[in-house]
Structures are given as structure tokens and as C-alpha cells.
């Protein structure tokens, strides 16, 4: 019975349902309202975009820790350029994304060409980008973005600002690419075993490089959304989103499939978001500590639940061993207790 319900693979969904029911009952006048719904959705769009940015290179076994810094960088570049009036805000935004692409390209160069561990390369890139952001922030930046620019992202459709739909579009595109195209298959192969993938003709270097560029640009887009949402420039807001985003990706990797995936990430993110909101409503004041506590505990609990079954397969860098000759094939169907076997995708 327990197995049928698949608590390991759908723990976030069960958790989500539990929150809806529990807080729906205890906080009946506030929790299940349009205002709360809107608030939770909007508040988590940036984290969602950052999480998806982190997810893309993770499928190739590459960690991009610079996603938070990329968000800040795109924000500072577009704010600087548009406040100096030389270019239109839209062009400034595109240049901001372009700057992120360049940074991603440089990270990729270190990772692919110079064989630097991605963890280290992107950490270094974070620091360099931070220096760039601090330097640029010293120039005068008028903080407000013009209304015409704001409208592109924040004008409501069905009561929700446009950028909510942009997140949905981004998620659909990434899901399609990762799960339904050869490109996605090659990326997961690279993450699973780079050497075997290369021998099978997969251009692993290019995929890793490309995924770092993509993640930088997607993270840069999170900066754009920040501009649309807040309307003002703020210095170094990006890194704050890093942990919740990574937590969502790893929690999400235990959901639906046994590898990092788009919908798992978003489900994990929003399940937690509703829980946090419920707790905040319950404890009304001084609730700033709830969010990290909740994210940390849920991440540990969900990944433990899934790891017990041996199903979370977050790509490891470089070689790792696969099953030995035993157990025999006919035992595979019955999952002998030894093998870390996986439920089928």
C-alpha cells in the first residue's frame, strides 16, 4: 500500500496537499484566498527562475554556483545603462543578458578547456561578477525603471503579472528540451557518465559549455524579472536566492523522476512556499526564521526519504562505478535488497 502511494517520488505533492488542507482549516479566513495565492505565486517566481538556471547545467553534471551573481549582474548592467539614458531599457536589459552570456562563456572555458572543477570555476566567477557589480554600483544609478519597461513584465493577465507566465513558458521550454529532444538526452548522458557519453559520440564539452551559458542567461533573466517586479535597482540581491533555488532543485530531483527535473523542481518550490506562507500566517509576527528552517528541514526529509530507496541520482562529477556482475538479471525485477535499484521512470 505504502509503495502504491509512492511517498518517495511524490512527497512534495503530498506535502503540498497537507498544507492546503491544514492551513486551509486553521487559517480559514486568510490562507485559501486569492490574495494569498497571488502573493505566494509572485513571491517565488525569481527563485523558480534561478532554480531552473541551476538545473540546466546540473543535468550535465556541472554545478553553476554563479546563478545568484548573474542575476545581480544583469540587473546592474541594465539599470546602469538605462539610467544613463543612452539606450532604451529593453536594449539595456538585452545587453545585461548578453553580459551574463559572456560570463557563462568564460566559466565554460575554465570548466571545459582548462578542466577546472565547475564548483570552483563558478565560485570564482561569482566573486569576479560581484566585484564588477560593486564597481558599477558606485556610479550614479537612478533607481527607478520607466513604466513602459515595467509594463512588459508586470502588466497583469488574469490578475497575475506577466512574468508569472514567463516562468511557466521557460519551464515548458526547458522541460521540452530536457525530456523530449535528443539534446536533453545527451545532457543527461553527460551528467551520468561523461566518458561513456563522449565515447558514444556525445559532444560533452560543448554541452557543458552551452549549459553554463544558458544558466547564466536564465539567471540574468531572473534579474530582469526583479526589475519588473520591484521597479527599482537594488545592489547584490541575487545571492540570497541561491540557497532556496538549489534546495528546490535537489528536493525536486527526488520527485517524479529519479533525476533533476523541471516539474519536480517547481513542485518542490511551490509546495514549500505554501507551507512557509501558512506558517507565516499562523505565527503572524517575527517569522523571518521560518523560511530557511522550513526549506532546510523539508530538503533533508524529502531527500532522505528518497535516498532510502536509492533513487536520487544527482550527477556526480567524473567516473563512478555501476553495478557489478551480480545480481543476476532475473533478480532485477524483484529488487533484491542489495542493489540500489530504481523505480522505472
Amino acid at each position, binding site marked *: 500500500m505504502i509503495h502504491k502511494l509512492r511517498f518517495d517520488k511524490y512527497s512534495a505533492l503530498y506535502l503540498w496537499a497537507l498544507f492546503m488542507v491544514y492551513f486551509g482549516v486553521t487559517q480559514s479566513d486568510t490562507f485559501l484566498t486569492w490574495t494569498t495565492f497571488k502573493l505566494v505565486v509572485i513571491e517565488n517566481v525569481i527563485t523558480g527562475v534561478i532554480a531552473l538556471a541551476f538545473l540546466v547545467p546540473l543535468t550535465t553534471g556541472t554545478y553553476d554556483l554563479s546563478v545568484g551573481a548573474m542575476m545581480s549582474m544583469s540587473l546592474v548592467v541594465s539599470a546602469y545603462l538605462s539610467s544613463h539614458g543612452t539606450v532604451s531599457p529593453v536594449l539595456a536589459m538585452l545587453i545585461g543578458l548578453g553580459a551574463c552570456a559572456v560570463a557563462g562563456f568564460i566559466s565554460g572555458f575554465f570548466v571545459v578547456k582548462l578542466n577546472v572543477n565547475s564548483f570552483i570555476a563558478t565560485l570564482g566567477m561569482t566573486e569576479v561578477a560581484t566585484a564588477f557589480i560593486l564597481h558599477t554600483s558606485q556610479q550614479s544609478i537612478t533607481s527607478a525603471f520607466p513604466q513602459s519597461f515595467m509594463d512588459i513584465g508586470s502588466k497583469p493577465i488574469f490578475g497575475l503579472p506577466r512574468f508569472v507566465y514567463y516562468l511557466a513558458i521557460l519551464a515548458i521550454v526547458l522541460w*521540452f528540451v530536457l525530456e*523530449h*529532444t*535528443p539534446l536533453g*538526452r*545527451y545532457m*543527461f*548522458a553527460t*551528467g*551520468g*557518465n561523461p*566518458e*561513456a*557519453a*563522449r*565515447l*558514444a*559520440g*556525445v*559532444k560533452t564539452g560543448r554541452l557543458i559549455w552551452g549549459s553554463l551559458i544558458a544558466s547564466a542567461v536564465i539567471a540574468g533573466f531572473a534579474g530582469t524579472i526583479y526589475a519588473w517586479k520591484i521597479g527599482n535597482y537594488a545592489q547584490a540581491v541575487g545571492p540570497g536566492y541561491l540557497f532556496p533555488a538549489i534546495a528546490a532543485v535537489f528536493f525536486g530531483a527526488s520527485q517524479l523522476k529519479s*533525476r533533476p527535473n523541471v516539474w519536480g523542481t517547481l513542485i518542490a518550490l511551490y509546495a514549500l512556499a505554501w507551507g512557509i506562507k501558512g506558517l507565516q500566517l499562523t505565527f503572524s509576527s517575527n517569522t523571518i526564521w521560518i523560511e530557511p528552517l522550513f526549506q532546510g528541514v523539508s530538503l533533508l526529509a524529502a531527500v532522505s526519504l528518497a535516498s532510502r530507496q536509492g533513487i536520487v*541520482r544527482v*550527477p556526480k562529477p567524473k*567516473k*563512478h*562505478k*555501476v*553495478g*557489478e*556482475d*551480480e*545480481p*543476476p*538479471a*532475473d*533478480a*532485477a*525485477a*524483484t*529488487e*533484491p*535488497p*542489495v*542493489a*540500489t*535499484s*530504481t523505480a*522505472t*521512470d
Partner: protein
Amino acid sequence: MGELLRIEHLWKTFPGQVALCDVGLEVDAGEVHALVGQNGSGKSTLIKVLCGYHQPDAGDAQAWVKGEPLTLGDGQAAAAAGIRFVHQDLGLVGSISAVENIALGVGYETGRFGRIRWRQEVKRTRAALEGLGLGNIDVKAPVSSLPPAQRTAVAIARALTGWQYGASLLVLDEPTATLPGDDVERLFEVIQHLRAQGISILYVSHHLDEVFELADRVTVLRDGKKVDTMLVRELDHSKLVELIVGHHIDTTTVSESSVTGRPVLSVRGLEGGTVRGVDLDVYPGEIVGLAGITGSGREDVLDLIAGQMPRDDGEVVVDGSHIDNYQPWDGIEAGMAFVPAERAVRGVIGTMNVRENLSLCDVARFVRAGRLSRRAELAETKQWIERLSIKTSGTEAPIGSLSGGNQQKVLFGKALRLAPKVLLLDEPTQGIDIGAKDQIHRLIDEAAASGMATLVASTDTDELVRLCHRIVVLANGRVRTTLVGDQISTERIEHAQLESARRAS
């Protein structure tokens, strides 16, 4: 000789499967006792029960060491009885030295303030290795930098160090699986050395030659049942194979040569790695074998041709088109398919299932209207599973849940579905059981019969004899001898390999 270990009525069932069925085993004091059987025959399960990893089924299972009862499935009891294990992957930590690896097992000797007494540790390690007749190992170098035979020796030394209860039984699980040929001899010397000291060895192996060279007695398991325990000197090779497989395998089939036309693969002056100038031609339908001791260039030729290793020099022509230094994808593009050695590291992608592994090379084939068609992919995967009789619970089973032989078949399917002109096979049956080996040999025959030009590099001379129309023996990075037709025999290949090695040194 007295009896050292006796196991009786051992049952072990996994959900839906009986792994061991009333198995018994007797090992005498001071003997090398081989344990053989195909994958899935239960030998690994037996070892895992002995070392306490698995619990036996409740029931009649009983065991004695030197007449004293032993609780099966209890690792500490086994250790206390003096049974030690060296598992297939050795379990060493590669980045630290032999001294540190041995201390991991038994703990460090410490002096004042908890300081490790390094000099004592080094001395102890040296002594342990000298006890194996191997005093010349660099005990301070990271273990990963040692040659494979020395690594195995370190693992054995670790198993034997701190043996306070007296030597009794050392279990070696596939110790030669990753050892190159001449290192195997060195390992055998170590084993003989141990036997001379009165230690019994339980030796698990796929390599029947080793059984004949080393073992006093052999126990054969098949489908979880004990077939028999016999004196090795009363057996011959084909009799043992028959016991293992349960029926007669014709090992003498020599493939018919059907060489026609122009060579589809032509290699001139190939250089790189250990290869220093190799010329080769392979014709459609031909199976050419590459033999040679480790370091002869045999291990690098296929990597160079497939584009995995950068070439220093030389020319590779596939079906008339020259290809310069290229990457694996260019090789595939040109019509080559490569099944590399070291399946677990270089072949399968452990995070993916059977379907994804099988279709990886040309997954773009399944694109319909811009997206991967699951239906088309499933249909083709099922075909290949059937065609290669791959034993799996389904297309979505994780690749790691398959036995080694079946994983290898998946990799063959992955190569064959490209319908390559040239098939490159490196150690095609490394570490897989004899039944799956036979099936893979048939697949290679069929591939050649359909017109593929096949190049097989193997350390298994019998395999080359079984498969090849022509065998190229390498030494010192060059072609030393080519054997054709009647000249092909195990003795001749081994003779040529050793001859060239001797001449080289």
C-alpha cells in the same frame, strides 16, 4: 589435510528468487579452493553470506570453522574465525598510500599526544607485504599510482594484517578481473606463497585457466545449486565448462572467412599512446583480432581508431574516405561503432535505463515533428532486447540492475543499431560469464556475416581463436606477426606474444 570450513544446507532467497538452494561447501586447510559458476549462479551471494553482508534464510544452514560452529551472516563471527575477504573492487582508497590503507583496516599505532607513529606504520606495512613476497612496493605512494597487481597485493596485505586469531581462510573474489596478463602471474606467486604458509584460499573466478593453474579443488555452482566439488587434476577444460553451463558448448567453431573486395577500414602508420606505427586492413565480413601483452599497443589501437585518444600520426581510411585527427562523433559519423573495454566506467551510463543506454548514439532517429517519439524508441528498444535476448525486467530497468553480460549486450545493441561499416570491440567479454560470452561471440559472428568489418582487441586468447579470421600480434607498439587460417591457435598466439616480449626486452 584437515577440514577448515564446512557449510551445510545453506538457503538464501530474495523476493521472487532463490539465490542459494541447499548449498554446501567444504574447504580443507591449506588448499586453494576455486568457486566457479556463471553470473547468477549464486557464488557472489555465497561470499556475501559468508562475510555477513547477507543473512541466510532461517533454517538448517550450519557452518563450522575447524570444527567450531560459525554463525553465518555475521561478519564479526567470520572475522573472529579468521576468515578474511578481498572483494573484486579491492576496496582501497586510491588517493592515500599503502600504509594508510592498511591502517584504515586495523587502526594507527599512536604515540604521545595521539601522534601517529609513522615509522612503525611503514615498518608494519613493509613487513606485511614482505610476507606476501612483495617487499619492493612503494608503501608511501598513493595506491592509485601503483600497478594493478601491487594494488591487489596491498588489498591482500590489508586483509591479513592484524590477524590476531591465526590465519585460516582468505576469500579472493575475482582478483584478476582487472589485472593485465603478467600481473596475474605475480598474483599467483602471492597466492602460492600464502598457501605455503598454510592459509586456505577460496578463489572465485570466471577464468577457468586460473582454476587449472592454481586450484586444488573446485566447487561448481549452477542456478543456486551446488553441482559438484571435484579435484582439479581429475578435470579438463571442456568437462569443467560443461559442469558450469550444464550442457556442451562447442568451443572449436572457427568462423568462416568471407573476405571480399576492398578493405573497409585501412590504417597506416598509426601512432599515439603505446602505439608506434601500426598498419592494418580489415575487409568487409572479416573479423581481425588484436593480440599482445599489456604495453604492446593492443590496449590503445582501438581508442586511437575510434577517435577517443588523439593520434600523434597516421592515417585512418573508412570506406575510402580519409579522416584526420578526429573525435569519437566523427568516427561514428564515418561509420564506425566502438564497444569500449571497462564496461562500468566507459560503457554504460549508470543513471540511465536500458532504453536510454541503447539508443544514446543515434537518438535523433526517433525525432518526429521536433520531439522524441517515445513510441518509436520503445518499439526499437524492444526489438533489440528480443534480438539480443537481453535479460531485463523491461526497457525502463536501470542499467545497473542487469548482470554484466546483459549490460554488455545492451552496449552491443547500442553499437549494432548504428549499422556500422566498422565494428571496433575492446575486450568484448571482459568479466562476463561463459553463457553470455558464447552469445556475444555469436553476435560478433553474425555482425561479420552481415558484412561489417570487425576488429577485436582481447587479452583472452581463446576468444580470439574462437572468433577471428586473422590475428595480428602486437609488440612494442608495432605489428609483430600476423596469423591466418590454420596458423591460428592459442599456443601460437601466446607463443608470438611472449616471443615478441622477450625479443623486446
